[in-house]
């Protein structure tokens, strides 16, 4: 007599458990999957303890050459929000989201920024401008508030503080750059990822290679660049964290320019190192640029 009800109770409990867990999810952390490390950092700062963020392309890895693992599709399937840069930066993301069967909304963090053209295509590296980054933060804030209205106040506070930090860094860089004459702000990088940065801060920046990391440079490109470096007396040459430094070293030596240091483009550095958050990355890039451009170097 006592056995049957017990079994029913156990079954009922087993049935109820997932329903109960589902009912609890609004107060659990929102699972956010960001396409790459910089976006993940922004989401983590704005979301705070309301979110748990995972970056598909981690620190020091190249989003252009990303190959998804099954675990990535699983994370997408379980995500409550997917944040991507857009502007064609993650060519693989649409297929991956579709393949994972995820029902989560996809936020394009770059929507609403002033888009920069690069040849026939759109330049996706908009986060390199601190002005555009404030738009990113606003987009992320709105999406997080929509997903977690209960925590709207805290999210809004964090977003506002973060935006103030971004604006303050931007203003400080601009005032320090003002001391350097405009015709001396000439640099060359090995990767054409700094168009937005150059536009925002008034730098004359040229690339050593085509605009994605996928192409191989031709002898004509290298020769043109060396001629240009020599003719325009470019001060500094930069190697960024994800491409072959040897070609740039060769060019610098041949043109008599100095190697300016490392600029971070598409990825944070590993946790605990000099550019492991978006804000630190931008401060590092600014300091490196300013040091290389100082007159009398």
């Amino acid at each position: 007599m006592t056995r049957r009800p017990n079994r029913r109770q156990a079954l009922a409990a087993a049935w109820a458990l997932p329903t109960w867990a589902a009912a609890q999810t609004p107060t659990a952390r929102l699972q956010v999957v960001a396409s790459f490390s910089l976006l993940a950092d922004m989401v983590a700062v704005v979301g705070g303890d309301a979110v748990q963020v995972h970056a598909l392309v981690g620190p020091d890895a190249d989003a252009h050459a990303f190959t998804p693992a099954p675990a990535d599709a699983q994370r997408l399937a379980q995500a409550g929000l997917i944040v991507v840069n857009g502007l064609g930066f993650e060519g693989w993301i649409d297929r991956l989201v579709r393949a994972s069967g995820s029902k989560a909304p996809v936020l394009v963090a770059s929507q609403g920024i002033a888009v920069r053209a690069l040849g026939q295509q759109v330049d996706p590296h908009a986060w390199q401008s601190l002005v555009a980054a404030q738009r990113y933060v606003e987009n992320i804030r709105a999406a997080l508030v929509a997903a977690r209205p209960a925590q709207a106040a805290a999210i809004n506070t964090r977003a506002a503080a973060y935006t103030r930090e971004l604006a303050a860094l931007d203003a400080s860089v601009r005032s320090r750059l003002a001391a350097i004459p405009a015709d001396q702000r000439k640099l060359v990088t090995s990767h054409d990822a700094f168009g937005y940065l150059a536009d925002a801060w008034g730098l004359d920046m040229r690339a050593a290679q085509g605009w994605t990391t996928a192409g191989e440079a031709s002898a004509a490109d290298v020769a043109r660049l060396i001629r240009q470096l020599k003719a325009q007396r470019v001060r500094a040459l930069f190697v960024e964290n994800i491409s072959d430094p040897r070609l740039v070293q060769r060019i610098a030596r041949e043109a008599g320019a100095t190697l300016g240091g490392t600029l971070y483009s598409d990825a944070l550095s590993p946790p605990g190192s000099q550019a492991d958050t978006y804000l630190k990355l931008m401060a590092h890039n600014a300091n490196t640029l300013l040091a290389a451009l100082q007159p009398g170097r």
Partner: protein
Amino acid sequence: MTLLASLHAALVQPFVEFGFMRRALVACLALGLSCGPVGTLLVLRRMSLAGDAMAHALLPGAAVAFLLVGLSLPAMSLGAFIAALAVAALAGGVARFTAQREDASLAGFYLIALAGGVMLISLRGNSVDLMRVLFGSILAVDDAALLLVAGVASASLLLLALVWRPLLVECFDPGFLRAVGGRGALHHQLFLVLLVANLVAGFQALGTLMAVGLLMLPAIAARCWAHSVAQLSVIACAIAAACGYGGLLLSYHAGLPSGPSIVLLAGAVYLVSLVVGTRDSLRARFFTAHRHRVA
């Protein structure tokens, strides 16, 4: 005079004006010098695809060295060298002690090595540095890489001069070599070491895939022209050197990536040789057949 001047501007000027062009050219010429005879021997020994297999076998060694030491030319060359030799030795050993044929065991081991290399790179999570290195750039050749290429080329030529005859005899008549007391197996091992050394030198300059291109294509193309083994290697050297020079000029004037330019030029030479060459070509076959019928 203007024709001469424009020819000078097109063919010589780039190398006069730019150091990186001179370095790239020297690297190509040095590679061509040793790739000619080594490629010829590969073709004669029916190991044309072994070069490709060995080039893939370099990967895990270079990857391990990169993970341990970082972007260091000596360490990565040594690692690649050891890994490829290990694959060659394992494949040879298996072929010797079991009923497996050498090409089958070589395929087995090089695929294991290749997958192991890709696995190692992925575990580290940062594939790009290494991919750049694996697809090395002929335009970025630095002093160390140039010394390596030149050193390997010189050593290869000296060593080949010593073992040329036994190696050839083994290609055509291994029984005779054994009968006169030659040690075919030893020479075969030595040749594999040479092959791996040349691939390592080539992969630093051109990347793994392109290195095999400069090794094999000139040697195969030379078969359509040469009448003796000595001619084969000399013509292969000449084609390799010409393709290095022409490919760099093509890359300079047409703005094309240099590695593929060089190898595609070698490929074009092969295709043209196949059609109009004096031996073993389409022309030779149909022209001589026709003449025989008339006579």
